[in-house]
């Protein structure tokens, strides 16, 4: 284990660290008589502890949410970085992990059930990245975790490793009591056992529609769990399951609220049965529970409060998609380059063609955005105390998975005939990328989430203004004065007065203007969409998708500009190309944003939306594709 500051063993230190250990758990389910006695045995390990010296900065207001109100937090334009020492250790350790995963006995492993595989990982402390060091975890910061996850994704089981780390282990690390952590988390970190995260029901759409239920027995010692969980990744080889179940339904007049609790269930207890769902590479299982007895100590976090756990964990999990997709994209680009260079022997030389170079540049541009946005978001979590990144992490998920999919498509097209064979690398990567589009959450639902989260925040602040805007006849002077003040927005020519170029390298001045334009249009777009639909905006999915696209583009532009500016200022190798990539990305993003916002109020576009809606309506009525065959005759 690396140490930033080797500390010698002292009495007060032990007390402090033990106190810290206790403070990480939410509550201790079982009271121990002498909590310190058992801990004392671990004390050799304490001598090896590293102490994090870096302090977190105070929380900033949420970035993307404020963008909707036209407030641009220029602090975010400072791209986050690690301390020198941290960076060195991180490079060394991820390097170790990389070499380990490349070794022959690791490469060929194709199941998480392989104990040796997990233990080898555990030996270099690569499971339990954020777990307490008392449990042999690493206590990494979010940015370091991202780097580890990127390395994971190199392996065929990368997806499974990330699921295990980011969903299951993290749930226990963040929310389980100390006793639970010791009993269940420690063996997992040691590689002896495996966890699985069971959230999805058979017909799962929202948390509140969950059908898996648990009831407390009369003596209050056990919970009885009933239900079925689908698509449990790692469910085949897992030993312990983290199960979310409905524990209380309170029926109000207006709505019924369900409370959800997370349980830790051992897979071999009576009542748990499972079967492998074939056809997925991810060892997905269906697990059913019939009157499973769970002792009350096995509750993770607080009773009835697990929806917060799910939200928190899933939000982090979305972020991890960024790391995985970046790696996949990078590998695909490198592989494609190899293929192209190999094929470039004859004249005319393939790699010199405009088509190839344009493709490579486009892929690099997209990958650059994906990387930047991932590390910027991780950095926000890392640098600022308790920073709200719910929207940002969802944006990372959408953008990076779409980038990876786009790159996979380009690869298939460029490779051509050989991509017709299943075992070709381009097909394999394409399949892996599909996981990020389908498993768990779709980008479509994420986009709705992004847009609505933003509007929820903006709606509260803009409420009074929107009321006036929606009732112009009651607010005559306001309406008239707005015609004047709003004229530049209507003509798609907003005042660019955010002066973002003050915070960036001068070479990025033009690109910073693009970002300013987009930020201004986003502010206007938010007002437009709320004025147009009012509270009904929740159901206006088409416009919401557009708003989400604009939000994604604005955030991505911020990330690439911040990164390119930093790289060029500190003189990283190839940083001039970073400037080019960033400027180009901003240019394309500006065009997309312009188009998306204009579509809110262009009459032709409103009509085309309506037309598509009507066609869809008729098709649901007749339950099929209604159009007659092209060769049909009427007489």
């Amino acid at each position, binding site marked *: 284990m690396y140490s930033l500051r080797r500390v010698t063993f002292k009495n007060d230190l032990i007390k402090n660290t033990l106190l810290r250990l206790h403070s990480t758990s939410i509550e201790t389910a079982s009271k121990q008589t002498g909590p310190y006695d058992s801990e004392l045995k671990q004390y050799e390990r304490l001598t090896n502890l590293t102490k994090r010296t870096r302090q977190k900065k105070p929380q900033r207001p949420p970035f993307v949410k404020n963008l909707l109100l036209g407030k641009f937090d220029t602090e975010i334009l400072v791209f986050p970085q690690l301390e020198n020492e941290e960076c060195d250790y991180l490079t060394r350790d991820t390097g170790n992990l990389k070499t380990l995963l490349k070794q022959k006995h690791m490469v060929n492993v194709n199941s998480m059930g392989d104990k040796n595989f997990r233990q080898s990982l555990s030996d270099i402390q690569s499971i339990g990245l954020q777990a307490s060091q008392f449990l042999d975890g690493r206590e990494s910061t979010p940015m370091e975790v991202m780097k580890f996850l990127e390395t994971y994704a190199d392996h065929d089981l990368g997806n499974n490793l990330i699921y295990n780390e980011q969903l299951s282990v993290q749930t226990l690390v963040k929310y389980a009591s100390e006793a639970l952590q010791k009993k269940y988390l420690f063996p997992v970190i040691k590689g002896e056992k495996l966890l699985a995260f069971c959230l999805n029901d058979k017909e799962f*759409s929202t948390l509140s529609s969950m059908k898996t239920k648990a009831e407390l027995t009369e003596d209050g010692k056990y919970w009885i769990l009933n239900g079925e969980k689908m698509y449990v990744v790692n469910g085949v080889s897992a030993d312990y399951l983290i199960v979310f179940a409905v524990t209380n339904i309170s029926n109000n007049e207006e709505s019924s609220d369900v409370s959800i609790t997370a349980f830790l269930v051992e897979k071999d207890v009576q009542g748990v049965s499972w079967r492998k769902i074939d056809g997925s590479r991810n060892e997905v299982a269906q697990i059913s529970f019939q009157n499973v007895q769970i002792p009350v100590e096995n509750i993770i976090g607080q009773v009835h409060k697990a929806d917060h756990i*799910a939200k928190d964990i*899933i939000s982090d999990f979305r972020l991890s998609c960024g790391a995985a997709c970046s790696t996949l994209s990078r590998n695909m680009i490198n592989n494609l380059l190899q293929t192209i260079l190999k094929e470039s022997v004859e004249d005319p030389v393939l790699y010199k063609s405009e088509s190839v170079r344009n493709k490579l540049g486009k892929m690099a541009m997209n990958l650059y955005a994906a990387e930047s946005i991932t590390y910027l978001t991780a950095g926000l979590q890392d640098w600022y105390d308790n920073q709200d990144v719910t929207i940002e992490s969802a944006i990372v998920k959408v953008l990076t998975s779409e980038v990876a999919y786009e790159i996979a498509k380009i690869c298939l097209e460029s490779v051509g005939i050989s991509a017709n064979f299943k075992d070709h690398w381009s097909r394999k990567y394409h399949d892996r990328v599909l996981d990020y589009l389908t498993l768990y959450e779709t980008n479509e639902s994420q986009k*709705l989430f992004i847009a609505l989260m933003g509007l929820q925040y903006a*709606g509260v602040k*803009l409420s009074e203004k929107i009321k006036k805007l929606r009732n112009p006849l009651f607010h005559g002077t306001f309406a008239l004065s707005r015609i004047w003040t709003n004229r530049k927005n209507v003509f798609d020519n907003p005042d660019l007065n955010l002066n973002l170029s003050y915070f960036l390298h001068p070479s990025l001045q033009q690109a910073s203007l693009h970002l300013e334009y987009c930020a201004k249009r986003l502010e206007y777009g938010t007002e437009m969409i709320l004025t147009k639909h009012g*509270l009904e905006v929740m159901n206006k999915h088409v416009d919401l998708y557009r708003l989400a696209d604009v939000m994604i583009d604005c955030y991505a532009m911020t990330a690439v500009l911040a990164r390119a500016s930093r790289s060029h200022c500190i003189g990283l190798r190839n940083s001039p190309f970073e400037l080019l990539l960033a400027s180009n990305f901003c240019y394309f993003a500006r065009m997309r944003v312009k188009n998306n916002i204009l579509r809110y109020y262009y009459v032709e576009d409103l009509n085309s939306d309506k037309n598509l809606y009507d066609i869809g309506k008729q098709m649901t009525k007749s339950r099929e594709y209604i159009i007659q065959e092209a060769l049909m005759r009427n*007489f």
Partner: protein
Amino acid sequence: MFMPWNKNKDDEKAISVKDHFETVKNKNKKTYLEMINIYINRDHIYRRGHVEFIYSALKHMEEFGVQKDLEVYKSLIDVLPKGKFVPQNLIQAEFMHYPKQQQCIVDLLEQMEDNGVMPDLDMEDQLLAIFGSRGFPLRKYWRMMYWMPKFKNMSPFPLPNPLPDDIFELAKLAIERISNIDVSNEVTIYQSVDIKDSIEDTWIISAQSETQRRLLSENKQEDPIFVEGAFKVWLKGNPINYFILRGQPRTYTDEYEDFDNVENIKPLFISNKPSVKSLYKAVPTVHEQQDGVIYAVCATGTSSKDSLLSWIRHLEIDRNPMLGKLSVVFTLRSGVKEVAKVEEQEQIDEK
């Protein structure tokens, strides 16, 4: 079109031909075409009285069941000579050459239109050969060919063409059409003999959706529900009787959230489907109408009270346990009404 010569078609001065169509015993398409053939062969050269023949043939079409048959109309037109009626100069063309013959064919086309028979392209050639390109029948034909294809597929409730003869198939189409209002509706076919005490053996076509099942289970125990009918639904001239299972109407308040207040936008953190949230406090389903809640629709082979009773029993077995606890009142409009009233009295007394 005002035509003075058309004013009294059945004028006594007109040549009255003996109506051979009435004397035919076996009235079907074959004999009808035979009649036309006999007429053509009888007077091969002059073919006297062909206008009168066509009029009388048109009159008897329905008896022979050929009023929707394009082939028959074409062979009727074929009775007229080719080339004889084509105008040879401007005056003839302008002043309706052979008016009676032209009017006769216009009437024939009119009858086709009334019966929804669309002419085909062969007919154009026929009319062109008989009356020339300036004849009124051809102009009528062109107008028909402009409008009829447009109207042919206008119905929002398309039916198979030709319509099945079987009453069971027809009833199934009718029930499918009625229940289509809720896309999640399922049409089930029960047999009344499957119920132990039933007297009759007939089919029951029943339609009920998941929503209707839920609504039925929410019906209060003290409120009776009604089997009502028979109502009629028409399928291209075929009336089909159907019955409904109806409950008391429910009241709804028209309360809704303030559309202008955007403080209450609620995103769903995890949602696999695009969420839809209604701003009205309560939105009635399509089954909850002002005069009652419709729980199910059916048509039976006999439309009798016994078959309806079997229907209710079947519904009870088929995921509607609530039906056993409710009093079901039969208010039928047909002759069995009296019986239903006695039953109604008994059932209310039981409660």
